[in-house]
């Protein structure tokens, strides 16, 4: 029924839409690392545990700051490799892939357990792939020895398949997929990517099979539903390309009626019916589509498709009407585009975009852009946000917007830190005045305690005791009364000896001897007690002296260090102040540059849409002219 020319046009048309419907389903966001951790009892460095405490609460910035502090202070000796790996992952989650790469590479530089090196290689491979360095990515993947923990393993397989596909090695990608049978979500992403790639390269049958399996996958989450829709959409257009309208319609009919891919599916359904020579049935989805916001390509095409269908049904009057309607709709839309472009060029565009893009109702960290962005599309028209959905189709725009938002967050973090600098100055000043206050007291104390002479005295005492003990001079420990008694007795002894011999003298000598003996005996008995007491007090003095000596040393040390360390602190605070002062304008400048870039991207995107509208409008004019020609020719007869 249709000529080869028409057939080729269908193929091109369907192929074009297929190209838009397909496209890789890579996860856009860098997922934070999933540390395969030893059980809690094995955490040996408390500070590493502190980092993890914040990490597990998804507080990545806080975790990273604490990690870097503990690293600088050498507080995690038992977890060095894991800490470095975690640092790499955290930097990655903050978008710092350069720094992350450095960390992963440094992990690999040392002797590390295989589980750690495997993960480092994986992250490096993922970064490489996202940056477009396929060879490096493949190499890194090749260095992974064992299975990765948790969800990293299926992610690795997806990455490996994606790398192969990006290198055009579809056969190997297909083989790796066949070996992958765990049924996780990741397999579906891989199958989708491969299916699309195979269709693009002409291996439609195999591509279709894969797309069909994804198109029938079980779904629970929004992300899964979006993937399934995409698969059915791509399948539908692939089948259209193959001129199989009925299976195409079946596939397209599986796309949700209220999802991000509905419009394209409706358009495709119409073409399927038209291709099956059922233009009246094609009108059903196309008329529905035509009522939707005209800023989307599918809707714009429906404006042409509807009159085309009418023309097929020989309802030329209707067809002409609809073509005219299309022309004016395109003109109106072009005018709106012009307005938006002018507004963007005039500045102030980004705030409006950001306000809409960061609507509290939107969860900005969804990897699934289709979800909330599509909701954005349904939002009432605001001048600059009408085209947000289209803008977000551009990867460059997304990244730029993320940077811009991050810069804003950084600026506020910096403001808070800058605000605390004053407090730091005060802290340092407080320390300085504190040590200045203690300095005269310290100096005084140091002067007052002449430890050396004290110790000399003590040493002298001890020597005397030793001497005494050696000589067993019991009288040395006598009390003053006893000493006086002893002296008196000595005198008596002498006087008695001087007496003339005789019983008187003997009796007296005996008495003196007894008295002296008693005293001596008493002194001897007390001697031991007194000696031990003396020794005890000597020991006490010993201890006290040692303690005083130690304290003095500490004081000396602190006295030595204090002026130096306070000076060190003051300098550090000043250094930080300088850095803050330098960073603030730098961040502002980067934000301004990013804003300009985003405006450029936006304008380019909108210009491209204008071009499309222009071509559609031209088409409509041609078709209208043809209709008039036909009518006048018919009329002339």
């Amino acid at each position, binding site marked *: 029924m249709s000529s080869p020319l028409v057939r080729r046009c269908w193929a091109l048309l369907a192929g074009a839409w297929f190209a838009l419907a397909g496209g890789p389903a890579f996860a856009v966001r860098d997922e934070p690392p999933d540390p395969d951790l030893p059980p809690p009892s094995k955490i040996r460095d*408390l500070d590493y545990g502190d980092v993890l405490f914040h990490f597990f609460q998804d507080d990545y910035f806080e975790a990273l700051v604490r990690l870097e502090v503990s690293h600088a202070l050498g507080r995690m000796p038992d977890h060095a490799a894991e800490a470095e790996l975690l640092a790499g992952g955290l930097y990655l989650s903050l978008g710092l892939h350069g720094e992350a790469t450095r960390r992963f590479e440094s992990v690999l530089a040392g002797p590390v357990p295989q589980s750690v090196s495997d993960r480092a290689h994986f992250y490096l491979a993922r970064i490489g792939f996202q940056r477009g360095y396929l060879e490096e990515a493949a190499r890194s993947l090749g260095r992974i020895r064992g299975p990765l923990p948790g969800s990293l393993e299926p992610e690795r397989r997806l990455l490996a398949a994606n790398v192969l596909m990006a290198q055009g090695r579809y056969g190997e990608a297909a083989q790796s997929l066949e070996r992958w049978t765990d049924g996780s979500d990741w397999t579906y992403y891989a199958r989708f990517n491969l299916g699309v790639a195979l269709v693009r390269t002409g291996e439609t049958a195999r591509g279709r099979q894969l797309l069909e399996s994804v198109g029938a996958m079980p779904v629970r989450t929004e992300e899964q539903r979006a993937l399934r829709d995409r698969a059915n959409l791509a399948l539908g257009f692939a089948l259209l390309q193959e001129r199989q309208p009925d299976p195409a319609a079946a596939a397209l009919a599986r796309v949700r009626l209220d999802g991000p891919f509905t419009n394209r599916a409706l358009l495709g359904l119409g073409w399927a019916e038209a291709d099956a020579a059922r233009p009246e049935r094609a009108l059903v989805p196309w008329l529905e589509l035509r009522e939707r916001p005209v800023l989307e390509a599918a809707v714009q095409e429906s404006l042409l498709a509807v009159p085309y269908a009418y023309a097929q049904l020989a309802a030329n009057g209707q067809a002409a009407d609809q073509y005219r309607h299309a022309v004016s709709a395109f003109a109106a839309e072009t005018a709106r585009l012009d307005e938006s472009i002018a507004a963007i060029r005039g500045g102030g565009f980004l705030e409006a975009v950001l306000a809409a893009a960061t609507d509290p109702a939107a969860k900005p960290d969804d990897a699934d852009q289709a979800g909330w962005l599509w909701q954005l599309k349904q939002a009432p028209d605001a001048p600059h946000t009408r085209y947000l959905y289209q803008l977000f189709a551009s990867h460059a725009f997304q990244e730029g917007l993320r940077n811009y938002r991050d810069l804003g967050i950084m600026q506020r973090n910096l403001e808070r830190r800058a605000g605390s600098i004053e407090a730091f100055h005060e802290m340092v000043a407080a320390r300085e005045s504190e040590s200045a206050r203690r300095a005269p007291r310290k100096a005084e104390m140091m002067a007052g305690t002449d430890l050396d002479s004290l110790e000399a005295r003590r040493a002298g005492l001890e020597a005397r005791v030793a001497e005494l003990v050696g000589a067993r001079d019991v009288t040395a420990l006598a009390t003053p009364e006893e000493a006086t008694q002893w002296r008196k007795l000595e005198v008596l002894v002498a006087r008695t000896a001087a007496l003339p011999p005789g019983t008187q003298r003997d009796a007296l000598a005996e008495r003196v001897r007894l008295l002296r003996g008693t005293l001596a005996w008493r002194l001897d008995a007390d001697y031991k007690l007194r000696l031990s007491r003396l020794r005890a007090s000597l020991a006490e003095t010993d201890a006290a002296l040692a303690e005083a000596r130690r304290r003095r040393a500490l004081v000396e040390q602190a006295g030595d260090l204090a002026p130096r360390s306070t000076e060190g602190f003051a300098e550090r605070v000043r250094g930080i102040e300088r850095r803050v002062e330098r960073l603030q304008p730098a961040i502002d400048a980067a934000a301004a540059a990013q804003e300009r870039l985003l405006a450029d991207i936006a304008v380019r995107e909108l210009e491209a849409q204008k071009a499309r509208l222009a071509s559609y409008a031209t088409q409509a004019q041609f078709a209208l002219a043809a209709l008039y020609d*036909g009518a006048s020719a018919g009329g002339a007869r």
Partner: protein
Amino acid sequence: MHPNSSGDSRGARGRLRRLACVGAFLVAGCALLTPSAGATGSSPEARTVDQDVQALKKELVDLNRDLFRLEEELLYPASTQVAVFLSVNLGTFFALDSVQLKLDGKDVANYLYTEREVEALHRGGVQKLYLGNLKAGEHELVAVFTGKGPHDRDYRRGTTVRFEKAVGAKYVELRITDRESSLQPEFAVRQWE
């Protein structure tokens, strides 16, 4: 409308069909021209700004790190620093509700735990519960935890730790564990210099 079987109409329709086809071709062509969703195509300026942003972010991380460190050194110098950590090592899930700390008879911490924090502890995180200053010598730490165990049973346990503060930073780890008795959670204490 009636299908017109006249030759001219057929010709008109054929022309129309061809035009529609051309139109489709135009559409296809235009569609192919629009940048596809997967392109990463970044201009040199975009790459420069991207690199600048990355560098700035790194500087900010470094700045935050240096401030954090400075603050700790100023407020809690190693010579007087004492840090109390809390960790959990349990075979069954324990919904920790709160922990109170008394140091030398003075209340120094009274922490209420959210679900998120409890989960972080169970996964192996260690909380830096308290950071303070103490003079050298003997000190006493009294810790009490409350929470709900399995079968909704309420627990309240305490422990007293006497420790010596020497010249370096002192770490005390309070671990809530059921390893010893394996029937209920208890405190175990470890000290680190």
